[in-house]
């Protein structure tokens, strides 16, 4: 069976690391945007972008949170660019068990950049809007692609992460218990 062609908007953030001044406004505004209520709190620990900030090595590297992964890589990358040695896994976007990045600080649930999905959509993602130095620049283009495969939703990813952490049985037990408790409290 041939997949059907479909138009798709590809959203890109162009990251010019040479323009980054390490202010972390992108982290600030991302965490505020995703707070509940919106902008109600702020905590860069929850941001879906992280600025690797090592001024004394002249390293300023904004990295976006990508997919969740249950297991860390077998091999690791270590880049040296222009004589500057970046930390292991520096460029990787994964929310991965090997490191603290891209996880909710308390629950350790994975975080992923959603390009500030909202209704109505924003003109530009907020990290781009708040980066007045143009280290982050937003671009859109249209592409023809094969029919998209279903992407798992945030909630699904979160449950998956919980299963990885606690095991399937434990998580389904807890879910059942919560469901029962909710039903009981509704009756009461």
């Amino acid at each position, binding site marked *: 069976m041939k997949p059907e062609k479909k138009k798709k908007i590809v959203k890109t953030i162009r990251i010019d690391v040479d323009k980054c*001044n390490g202010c972390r406004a992108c982290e600030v505004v991302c965490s505020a945007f995703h707070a509940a209520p919106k902008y109600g709190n702020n905590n860069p620990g929850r941001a879906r972008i992280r600025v690797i900030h090592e*001024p*004394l*090595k*002249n390293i300023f590297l904004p990295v976006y949170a990508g997919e969740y992964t249950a297991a860390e890589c077998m091999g690791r990358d270590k880049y040296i660019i222009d004589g500057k040695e970046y930390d292991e896994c520096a460029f990787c976007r994964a929310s991965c068990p090997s490191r603290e990045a891209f996880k909710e*600080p308390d629950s350790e649930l994975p975080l992923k950049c959603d390009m500030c999905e909202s209704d109505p959509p924003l003109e530009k993602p907020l990290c781009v809007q708040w980066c007045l130095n143009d280290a982050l620049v937003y671009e859109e283009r249209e592409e023809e692609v094969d029919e998209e495969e279903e992407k798992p939703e945030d909630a699904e990813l979160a449950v998956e992460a919980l299963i990885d952490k606690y095991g399937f049985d434990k998580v389904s037990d807890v879910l059942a218990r919560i469901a029962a408790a909710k039903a009981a409290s509704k009756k009461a």
Partner: protein
Amino acid sequence: MRYAETGYNLEIDLSKGSIERVPTDPKLTELHLGGLGTNARIIWDRVPPDVDPLSPDNILIFSTGLLCGTPAPGANRTIVSTISPQTLFMHFSMMGGFLAPELKYAGYDKVVIKGKSPSLVYLWINNDKVEIRDATHLHGKGALETAELIRQELGEPRAQVAAIGLAGENSVYFASIEHGRSSASRGGIGAVMGSKGLKAIAVRGTKDVHVAKPERFFELCNEVLKYIEFRAKNPIKGVPPILAGIGSPQEMAIHDEEWHTTSFAWGNARHRRKGFWTKEVEESWRRSQERAVQRLVSCYNCPMKCGAIISYPALGVSRYMMKCYSKLTYVMAAMADDLDFGFSIAGLAQEYGVDGYSTPQVMAFAVELYEAGILTDADLPGFPKDNKERFFYLLEKIVRREGIGDVLAKGVYWAAREIGKGAEAFDHNTIKRHEQIPIKLGMLNPIYFVMWATGEKANITQIEGQLPQAPFPTKELREDFVKDWIQVPTGKEERFKKFVLEWGDPGTEFPFYPPIDLICELVDWQETMHYIDDSTGICAGLSSFPLKPPYHIHNLPLIISAATGLEIDEDGLWEIARRNRTLVRAVNVRRGLRRKDEKPPEDHWKKRFPEYEAKILDEYYEYKGWNKEGIPKKETLERLELDFVAQDLVRRGILEGNGEGK
């Protein structure tokens, strides 16, 4: 729930090794906001006037500002307050960078430190986990080096660290606390930290900071960012480039230093070099700066780039960070004509942790004493001939407190008195025992007279701002300036704009212009804006310091209200700032501050008018609600809900009671 603030302070007693997390009283936020305001309250309550600044009883407070950790752009100041070993008054250094927001995210508004640790330690604050850790292996390490070593040993690359260098460990009276590109450097705050046996504070926080009215608050933040963009495109016309933009003076981005090098005094605040800025100098300084500056950098959540990463392998200078004016202070004090010298000595000075304003002046003072034969080869064995080498020599002596360095380490005022033999005459640039920016002018400037005399921190940059420093040369420029001058307080628009429009016309010459009542209003406005920033933690570079800043008396009450849920209007905010300002004065009055201390250096201006100056000071004190000695009056204190201060001052006989006392 508490908004903007966390509602908790950390109380550390280094003598006992105890750590407590203490809830704070929300009423104090209403009265003082936070930052410097609540610091002053703690110092008033807990540090009696006879406490020796370097004794365990002195308190050292690392405070966040009220808005630090919220998305308010540039709200990142750590306000470090203590009693200064140099001035013997309450000192409050503010530093930018990343420490204060991190502390908020860790769940604390302040770290209040007393006592003295038996051996060198550092503090590790990691959310709820707080430890006092051994730092004996960090003894003698540079301030930036210490921060790196601590991050490595904790395995926490994202920990924010503030540390002292050797100067702080040795209680040099102008030792700083260094934090990356920023430092709390004035008044010997690093010496107090060293006297407590505290090498560093490391912080990591991953908790939320809440705001009360999210949508409104966010909208106001966006307006601030828009105005920052507007100002980037619209520099003030008719002023030197260094004054045209916002942020701290853009020393790292701008290489045109004509204004500083020709208006400020060189050496021990002696010589003006009006013809210094030639084409050749400009070319050589530009090259030097381009070679040294690797990248411009910001503080937390701020789009400005006031700092720079410096690296200059050709000079053997490894990487460090610099901001503002320190590239020039050493160069000018040493009468060195090349900027390379500035970049190389400033890096070393930063690792030792000394103030970039006081240190070069102390060294220039020592050089003068040597040339006058007051210090001899016996005091300075092997003293080099070349001035630049002399500065490196003196730096080593001072931070190690070796030989005469032990005396010079107390700063110009104390060293002059200890050395004697006429050395006092060479102390011609201190106020309140504190080295001032080296500037020597012709005609008395009555506005600056009041600011130099009365500033509580004895630091002109902590009181000036907002007002052009000189008249605009043409009518068009004046009109252009006032046409969108939105920062002026309500009710003052007409008076302040009229002043700018006519200033420069015949009959508007100093010293008898502007009229004293207008001087009072202009100074009070400028100072009040600083006290607001010092309580909110917003960088003065975006607020009280430059011309036409994005934060001003009209949007600040809205921003503070939306963040905290308090209802504060323009008058209310002004009242809080006045309360904080008065409380800092009261702390110092109790420690002996009087009118006699409020004196700009004799030679600050060539043309002085003692009687007129006395009259200006009288009227300004009156305007502030202070008596002829500069002591806040009883009714002033009571109006500001500082009754307890009034009672204390009456009990001590400093203020008259109702008809009793003196």
